[in-house]
């Protein structure tokens, strides 16, 4: 079971990133727990500078841009 986190307040980019993650999880059939972190205090524990951030199993994969579905699927499959 993978733990996927999307860090970012409720802006459009972060919402798209979140939706892309859900889409990628569904397409790849990987079992994953997807959490969206919108609280700044919690976000800052991860040393975030630019949002959105994609983390898989506590490892930062993408920061400051929206990852696309294929990219996320690749992250999910290589681990």
């Amino acid at each position, binding site marked *: 079971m993978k733990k996927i986190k999307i860090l970012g307040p409720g802006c459009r980019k972060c919402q798209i990133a979140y939706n892309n993650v859900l889409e990628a999880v569904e397409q790849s059939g990987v079992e994953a727990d997807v959490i969206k972190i919108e609280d700044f205090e919690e976000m*800052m524990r991860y040393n975030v*500078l630019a949002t959105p951030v994609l983390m898989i199993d506590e490892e930062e994969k993408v920061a400051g841009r929206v990852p696309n579905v294929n990219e996320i699927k690749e992250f999910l499959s290589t681990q």
Partner: protein
Amino acid sequence: MFDWTQQLADWIVYTVLKLGAETPVGNALNFFIYDTIKILILLFLIVFIMGIVNAYFPVDRLRDFLTNKKLYGFEYFFAALFGAITPFCSCSSVPLFIGFVRGGIPLGVTFAFLITSPLVNEIALALFLGMFGVKATLIYAGSGILLGTLGGFVLGKMNLAHLLTEWVKNLLQNAQKVSEEFEQKKLSFFQRLPNITREAWQIVSGVLVYIIIGIGIGAFMYGYVPENFFETYLGSGDWWTVPAAVILAVPMYANAAAIVPVIEVFVIKGVPLGTAIAFMMATIGLSLPEPHC
């Protein structure tokens, strides 16, 4: 560079649609077609170039530069300059602020970055370039950086740290210089290109509708508002027209993409460029966040 766009617009409006060159509707449509094509090309180009710059100078690296280098008073200027080349997303501004201050960068320097970042963004620059030319664009970018430098310096002298929220203060208690080496992903330029292109396209398509609305309003005014109409009210060059433009701009719920094409027509119809720049900075800096965020 854009002669062909004018010729294309002329051909569509005057030859295909058979609208007279002197009629308001002909003028407006010609303006709309010419501006839309020109602006979209410039926008994509500039966003793309900024994307390349950002791939090589991501914000983590800029922060490390500000933290680790001795800059002898120039740190405000550098922070403002970095703010100009970093794309601004209003929802990143809180994490950015905390991340900078926690990394040991003084509040004032952080503000210099945060003031310039939305003012000088790739969309505003592309639109300015398309509508007012290179010189005006450089003046605009220069004033934005100057404003950030001075603003950051003044705010830095005001000792605002005690006004921070409690949890941010607690975070800063444990502040430490960020020395972790920035994780360099070993990707070649050509491996990065698809990503940069896709993002540039995402940004452009995100503001597309605002630009077309803006150019539409601009084109309508271009065709139907009489020459020198604004000169009577905002164009006299009196000193008070600039603060008046700023105050007028604050409640304008618009973004750069929609406002610049309208301002272009203001200038064509007699408003001085300086007043127009003041108006634009107030609109972008104090109103709606940029939509590409």
